[in-house]
């Protein structure tokens, strides 16, 4: 209730073209030369002091990438990307690898404070009521700080930057890297494999319930910089972890490329809950600038009764191309996908999920809520595939689209295939408009058009918002309202 109230307050306070996170931080960076070749790949690897096997892995991916073509099947339009005009590495100069928060550049801490992300443990520890969230902050290409490490270590949980994991837990990284999203997977995943910079690494040992929410905040700061983070999360037998990522970028007139890869592995009886609040800069009201978000996210339910759930709130980016998926290998494993995708202005969203049922009695559930406003195009693209041996597989899909105004579009593209006759697949889809009747009813009660729209949209996405960890649901709700700014005439 209070959240809705806050939502409307925030909406009121903001003008149409304002992207709150659009500031640029004056931080000196070390930036690799523009362009991509084997030397750059080697440079990145050397910067991170990586072992030889990882450099080879990168180079192999790079060579593979040279033979691949950009996918063009999504319902998105953009001019060709010049991959030689991008910096593939940028790092704040004070790095590498601060050992404690005291070593972090104060300007960086200020940036994160501005973003509303606490990197100071004491502050969080002091507040008894505040939820405790361990944060890994990634600035351009490197991780700048990870909080609560000591406390997590006590529970046996490893939560650190990917670069650090390569140094200190090389065996784990080597065992799992690329086993869910192989380096040959697709154009952008392969590019990422060659040049990935940093990201988070999580390992939760058998039987351990991670004692707090884990969270990573990604921030692109440098101009003409691509961000290619790589995240790897492993939940061993019977483990549980809830992880949240948030993303922002400065306002820039040119487009920024973001091509991340996320791999999740869940063993027997393990559960991974992965939530995303994606708010990359969406471009201005004329459609200039904004982040191209081409992301590959996949979870592997390797063990019996394992569970992976993706929850995403997507409000940012000029283009979103993203299909968090679950491979349901283990018997009776379960995949879930809850999505809110909001598009306004000239944003283009082509997003959805894949549920690949390989094991017996596997179940999946897809709830997708698309909200389109302005001149945006919003496509849900989802695949449910039941393989020959997946006896007793079940899927339920519900795709709802809400249109605001007359110039936007909503599209639903479901692919369903069942090779086992026992499969039960349900698909429901609706498209509705914020009706004039609903708006008028709210206005008659004294709400402004913005307040009314925020209220109606929040109602529409409520089922999914409830899936988010509590402390982020409120934030997401505000974000939704802000991103719909100016959508009602």
């Amino acid at each position, binding site marked *: *209730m209070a959240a809705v109230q806050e939502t409307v307050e925030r909406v009121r306070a903001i003008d149409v073209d304002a992207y709150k996170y659009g500031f640029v931080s004056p931080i000196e960076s070390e930036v690799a030369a523009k362009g991509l070749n084997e030397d750059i790949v080697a440079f990145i690897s050397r910067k991170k002091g990586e072992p030889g096997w990882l450099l080879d892995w990168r180079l192999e991916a790079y060579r593979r990438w040279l033979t691949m073509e950009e996918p063009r099947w999504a319902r998105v339009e953009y001019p060709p990307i010049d991959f030689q005009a991008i910096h593939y590495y940028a790092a704040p100069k004070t790095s590498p690898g601060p050992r404690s928060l005291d070593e972090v550049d104060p300007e960086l801490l200020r940036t994160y404070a501005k973003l509303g992300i606490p990197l100071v443990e004491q502050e969080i520890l002091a507040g008894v009521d505040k939820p405790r969230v361990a944060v890994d902050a990634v600035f351009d290409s490197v991780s700048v700080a990870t909080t609560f490490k000591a406390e997590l270590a006590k529970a046996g949980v490893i939560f650190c930057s990917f670069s650090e994991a390569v140094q200190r837990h090389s065996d784990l990284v080597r065992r799992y890297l690329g086993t869910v999203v192989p380096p040959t997977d697709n154009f952008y995943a392969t590019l990422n494999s060659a040049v990935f910079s940093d990201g988070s690494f999580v390992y939760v040992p058998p039987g351990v319930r991670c004692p707090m929410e884990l969270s990573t905040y990604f921030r692109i700061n440098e101009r003409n910089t691509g961000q290619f983070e790589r995240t790897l999360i492993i939940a061993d037998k019977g483990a549980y972890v809830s992880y949240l990522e948030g993303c922002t970028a400065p306002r820039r007139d040119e487009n920024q490329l973001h091509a991340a890869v996320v791999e999740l592995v869940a063993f027997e009886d393990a559960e991974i809950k992965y939530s995303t609040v994606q708010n990359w800069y969406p471009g201005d009201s004329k459609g200039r600038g904004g982040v191209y978000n081409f992301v590959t996210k996949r979870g592997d339910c390797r063990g019996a009764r394992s569970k992976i759930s993706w929850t995403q709130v997507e409000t940012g980016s000029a283009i979103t191309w993203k299909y968090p998926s679950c491979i349901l290998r283990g018997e009776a494993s379960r995949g879930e996908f809850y999505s809110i995708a909001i598009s306004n202005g000239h944003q283009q969203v082509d997003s959805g999920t894949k549920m690949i049922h390989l094991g017996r009695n596997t179940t999946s559930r897809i709830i997708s809520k698309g909200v389109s406003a302005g001149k945006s195009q919003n496509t849900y693209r989802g695949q449910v595939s039941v393989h020959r041996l997946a006896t007793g597989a079940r899927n339920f899909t519900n795709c709802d689209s809400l249109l605001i105004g007359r110039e936007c579009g909503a599209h639903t593209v479901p692919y369903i295939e069942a090779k086992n006759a026992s499969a039960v697949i349900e698909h429901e889809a609706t498209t509705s408009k914020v009706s004039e009747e609903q708006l008028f009813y709210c206005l*008659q*009660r004294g709400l402004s058009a913005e307040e009314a729209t925020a209220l109606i949209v929040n109602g529409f996405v409520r089922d999914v918002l409830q899936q988010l960890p509590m402390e982020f649901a409120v934030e997401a709700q505000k974000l939704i309202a802000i991103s719909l700014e100016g959508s009602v005439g």
Partner: protein
Amino acid sequence: MLEIEHLSVTVHGKPILDDLSLSVKAGEVAAIMGPNGSGKSTLSYVIAGKPHYVVTSGRVLLEGEDLLALDPTERALKGVFLAFQYPIEIPGVATMTFLKTALNAGRRARGESDLTTPEFMRRVREASQLLKIDLEMLRRPLNVGFSGGEKKRLEILQMALIQPRMAVLDETDSGLDIDALRIVAEGVNRLREPTRGFLVITHYQRLLEHIRPDVVHVMARGRIVASGGPELALELERKGYREFEEEAA
């Protein structure tokens, strides 16, 4: 309080109201009776500012201020309240949330601070009790799956919380059984005040047995064809609308 002067209105090019004049004084309950299609609901929508109703001539003033120059939100904040004949469903939005948002919108417009949750709950509980509304109902999404009676009682609950200056009730009695009708009517009667005006639109005299009007207007073919005291409603019930419709023709 409310002055409607020579109002003509078309909807999608079709004339619905034709040179209609009417006034409601502060403290007065004015009833409008009329057959289906006489333009009663149109009148209520035009007062509240619903889109697509085109005013071709005339004025609507609330305490001297030109309502037609204001958007629907502004009219609501000036004190115009419409109890809808068919209240609208908003899925996923808890009724309680809606009530609080609406109530605080009004408070802010008056420069007051938001209600605290306990104070809000106290008011809701009190008003709900009088209207025999179960608080459980208010946790459900707004009007979704509500019975006709529940929807109408909720309209009156909103009116009781918002405390408007000028309330327009559009066929609030339709779809109500006699017990619900009594509860709703009592709800309205409790809000009668020397500073508040009511325009009660109804098809039947039945409602007016419970909400005693000060004035009764008969509407036919988009205009007021007869006005009188409460006895006019009884006469209408006896004679039917036909005679008045013929007069208007």
